[in-house]
Structure formats: structure tokens, C-alpha cells
């Protein structure tokens, strides 16, 4: 293990808060994410994970607090942030009425890749996902697990510094889930920092560090191993349960 001082910090959040009217969805959260890390963002439904993520990627204005993503300030430089991140939203958001190939071209194009890059990278993507035979099929015809793998591959298509994944594996079968995590590891191995939210506690174990969010606040943050040590509980599931059952928000 390397010491924190040696690492580059790619996400730095201080007292970030989001209120909708008088409801505080995200309450003064602070944390840092290191370069190349897989950072798990855990929390029950309605804990505020998506809201926090949307502020970090520059599509939702925070109420207060500070955050710096990929070296840019979320208030003043959202467009620079967008050039350096990839995002896979909780709701599937590729174009269902376009084919796999058309989606690849489109997202490659709007991120400013040139024709050769698009061609080369899409070959690579189709091979990796084994999609060559079906590249002209409409995305709407794909099973959910395949859609999610495609969405992830497109989120990192332009080689971002950080990729934000919002519950990428919810509703996906265990085998595809495994394959999905292989893709995440590969991205991480290639130097992409991964910020991922999940409901699955087994997935939490795959992360370098995890934070557990309850009612808009971060209640615990450490590596899975340290957390188990600190809480003297040997399953993340139980730690999560211990913290989350104090939640007041019910959905």
C-alpha cells in the first residue's frame, strides 16, 4: 500500500451541500478520491448518491460547499470537467433507436475524436464486448446487461481521467455483473479513476475504498478491510445495515 501523500488527488470535495427547497438531499459531505482508485459510493435509496454525483459532473448546481474534479472547479469550470470525465447515468441513456455502431460513432464524434480514432476504438470496443455480429442491431433490442456494458464502454470511449458510474449493475444478472467488473478493473488498470455507486455489498468489496452515505451524510469512509477492523464486524453488509438502519428517509 502506498501512503496517501504519494497519490494524486483527482476529486476533492469539501462540505458539499444540495438543498431542494427546505429538504437537504446532500448534507456537507467531504472526501477525496485518489488517482487510479476505484471509489465505491454506497447508500440506501434516497441517500443522496445521484444528487452528489450530478454536482460533481457539472449538471447540477450545489447549494454550498466546494469541489474540485480532475483539477477543475465545479462552479467555474464545468465545461473543462466535462472534457475529462465519463458518465454512466442510473437511467440507461444511450439512444435506443440507434444501432450499436451509430451510438459509438455519435458519442465518439461529440467528444471530438477524429475519424481514425473512432474507427480504431470502435473496432476495439466491438471486439472486447464481442459485438461485431450485432453492431447493426438497434440498442433497444439488447438485453439489459449488454446495454450496460455498452454504456460503460462508451462512457470511457474518449479516455477520460475519471468515470462516474451510477448504479451500473442494478438489475443485471450475476454473471454479467462479474464481466462488468472485469471491465471496470481493466479501465482502472489503464489509469482511469472510477467513482461508482452501488447497492450490492459484494461489489463494495471490489472497491479500493468505500464511503457509506446515510440521509445525505457520509457516515463511514475507508477501505473495506479497515472498515471491518474499525467496526469489528467482518461483513460490509452488516456494517452497512448498522449505519443505514438509523436512516430517517424511507422510500
Amino acid at each position, binding site marked *: 500500500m502506498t501512503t496517501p501523500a504519494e497519490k494524486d488527488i483527482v476529486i476533492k470535495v469539501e462540505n458539499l451541500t444540495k438543498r431542494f427547497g427546505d429538504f437537504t438531499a446532500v448534507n456537507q459531505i467531504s472526501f477525496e478520491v485518489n488517482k487510479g482508485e476505484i471509489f465505491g459510493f454506497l447508500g440506501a435509496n434516497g441517500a443522496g448518491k445521484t444528487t452528489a454525483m450530478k454536482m460533481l459532473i457539472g449538471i447540477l*448546481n450545489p447549494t454550498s460547499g466546494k469541489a474540485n474534479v480532475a483539477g477543475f472547479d465545479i462552479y467555474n469550470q464545468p465545461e473543462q470537467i466535462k*472534457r475529462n470525465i465519463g458518465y454512466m*447515468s442510473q437511467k440507461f441513456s444511450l439512444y435506443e*433507436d*440507434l444501432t450499436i455502431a451509430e451510438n459509438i*460513432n*455519435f458519442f465518439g464524434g*461529440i467528444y471530438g475524436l477524429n475519424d481514425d480514432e473512432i474507427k480504431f476504438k470502435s473496432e476495439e470496443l466491438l471486439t472486447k464486448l464481442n459485438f461485431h455480429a450485432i453492431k447493426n442491431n438497434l440498442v433497444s433490442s439488447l438485453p439489459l446487461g449488454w446495454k450496460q456494458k455498452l454504456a460503460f464502454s462508451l462512457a470511457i470511449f474518449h479516455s477520460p481521467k475519471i468515470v462516474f458510474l451510477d448504479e451500473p449493475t442494478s438489475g443485471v444478472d450475476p454473471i454479467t455483473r462479474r464481466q462488468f467488473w472485469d471491465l471496470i478493473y481493466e479501465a482502472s488498470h489503464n489509469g482511469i479513476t472510477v467513482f461508482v455507486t452501488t447497492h450490492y455489498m459484494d461489489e463494495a468489496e471490489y472497491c479500493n475504498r468505500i464511503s457509506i452515505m446515510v440521509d445525505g451524510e457520509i457516515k463511514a469512509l475507508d477501505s473495506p478491510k479497515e472498515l471491518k477492523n474499525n467496526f469489528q464486524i467482518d461483513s460490509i453488509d452488516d456494517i452497512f445495515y448498522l449505519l443505514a438502519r438509523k436512516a430517517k428517509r424511507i422510500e
Partner: protein
Amino acid sequence: MRQLKFLLIKEFQQILRNKLLVRLIIAVPIVQLVILPFAANYEIQNIKLSVVDNDHSEYSRKLINKFTSTNYFLLNGYFYSYKEAIHQLEKDNAELIIEIPKNFEKDLIRENETKIFITANAINGQTAGLSVSYSNSIIRDFNNDIRIEWLQPARINSLPTIEVTSSNWFNPKMNYKYFIVPGLMVLLVTLVGFLLTTINIVKEKEDGTIEQLNVSPLKKYQFILGKLIPFWIIGLVVLTIAQIVSFVLYGIYPVGSYLTIYLFAAIYLVALLGFGLFVSTLAETQQQAMFIAYFFMMIFILLGGLFAPIENMPNWAQFLTRLNPVSYFIEAIRMIILKGSGIKELATHFGIIILFAIIFNTLAVYSYHKTN
């Protein structure tokens, strides 16, 4: 530029893949132009007429003859009393009653003056108004006839008989189609341009795909142009289909130039699509978008002067039509097609529509946010 190219490719791939939509875009203007000009004909013929002749004189017969010899009226029958005739009206067998009083002829000759009573069923105000005005001109005509008849024995032919004919400039045969078809073209372009843009953008919101665009480095203006250009092109395609159909079917072609029409349409579409984009920023779901779009379409149509001439509207409504971009295009296209007006004569119209384009697009740019 390159980003815009990819946005346009994507938009056309989606539109062309939607086969039903493509067919509708082509079929709607054709079908509407085939059907509506016939349905929306305001010339009224065969108004059912009931007569109560209490005089039974030569003159009363002459007057009735004058009514029935036109195509406008169709005699439903003679009745002995007004009460009976009203009964016909109630049963919808008659739309207009003429009652000729006793001593009609005598009064006319002795007093030089008499009265007749006309009753119209005003449930359909339009028909009632028209049938009364038709009656008036027939009676006026009748007046002239008998005056000439009386004067003839004296051999004074110099008395001018005043003939009241309404002249319809630029539409000499008062062909209603010339009035309605150019207006319909505008409406079709508006319908397709406005509704399709609005719903298209809101669909991206509903599907969440717009979020994927908002986290990309796409510029705001690229997104907006990427949405406007496809529907701008489709709007002009619809206009072209409409021009072809109205030439083939009705022989209507502009006395002025096609160039003026297209130039106006090009600017008009920029204004309209900007408005569509603005509306789409107000709605979160396609259902809401449809509702808002419908609301504005109704106003566009009813206050656009398509069916009812704007001059006939009350003042406050006339004022509202001045705020309706559709009314300017309808007026302009009629002037180009029927009168042959050019850019010079239409300078005000061009000016105003450019102003609309600027206002709506500024609104759209300001209300579309990549960040909420």
C-alpha cells in the same frame, strides 16, 4: 463544426428510422390540402327558405321568385302563418323565413314604402349572417327592378340604377380556395415544425439521453443548432410538398416569386423553432409538451386569420393577432401568391418576423441550461 455534423447525422438517423413519422410528414400536408379547402368552404348555397305570403299579389310573387331563382335559396314551402313557418325553423326544415305582409303591393305603390320580415335561425351565426346579407342584396335588386319598371312608361331612361356588386380584388372569382390554400400551407409548416421540435427535445429529456449530452463537452449553441437545423429542413420540405399539391390540385401558384416565399419561410421557421425550443425547456414530459404545444397551436390557428379575416375580429383580438407570428406568414404568403408582392412590399412583415426570430431564439438560448 464537427460536433454539429455528428448531431445532425444522429438526428436524421433517428427521424428516418421512424418510418411512421416520415410517412406522416409527407402525407399530412397532402391529405389536409386535399380535404380542408373543400370542407372549409364558406360560400353557402341552398339555404332552406320558408315563405309566408300574406299578400298573394303580383309583386309578392315577383319577390319570392327573385329569391328562389338564385342558387342561394331553396324553397321549403309556403305557409299560411308565421307560427307555422317558425315551426319549420324549429324542426330544422327551414333556415330563413320571409314574411310578406298584407297590402305589400298596395303600400308599395301608394306609399312608396313597405316592409317585409326576415327571420333567420342564428344557431349557426355564420349561415344566419350570410343568408340575411344575401336577402338584403336580393331585396335591393328587387327595389331597383320595380323602380325601373315604374319609370319606363315615362320613358326616362336616364335614372341611374345603382348596382351593388362587391368586388373581390386579387381573388376575382371570390374563390374561397385561393384564400384558404396559402393559409393552410403556413399552418402545415407550423404544425410540423413546432410540434416536432418541441416533442423531440422533450423526448430526450424523458429518455434521459439529454443528460448524456449535458455531461459531454458539446456547446450550447451546437446542441441548439443540432435541433433546429433538421426541423428547419423538414419544414421547408413540407412547404415544398404543399406548393406542389396546391399547384397540381388547384392550379394555385404564386403571382409573385417562389424565392420570396422560401426566404420568408426560412426566417419564419427560425422564429418558430426557437419558440418550440423555448417551450421544450418548460416541459418535463412529452405529455406536458403536447399540452403546451396544443395550447399554442390553437391560438396560432384561431388568431392567425386563416379562416376568419382578421379585420372582422374585435379590436382586442386584432391586437392579439399582431403578437402571433403565424398571422404575419399567412398575410405575407397570401400577398405573395395572390397579389405578387415582393420583398419591398413585405418589408414590414420581414422586419417583424426577424424580430420574432431574435426574441424567441434569445429566450431559448437563455432558458436551455446544461446545468440545472
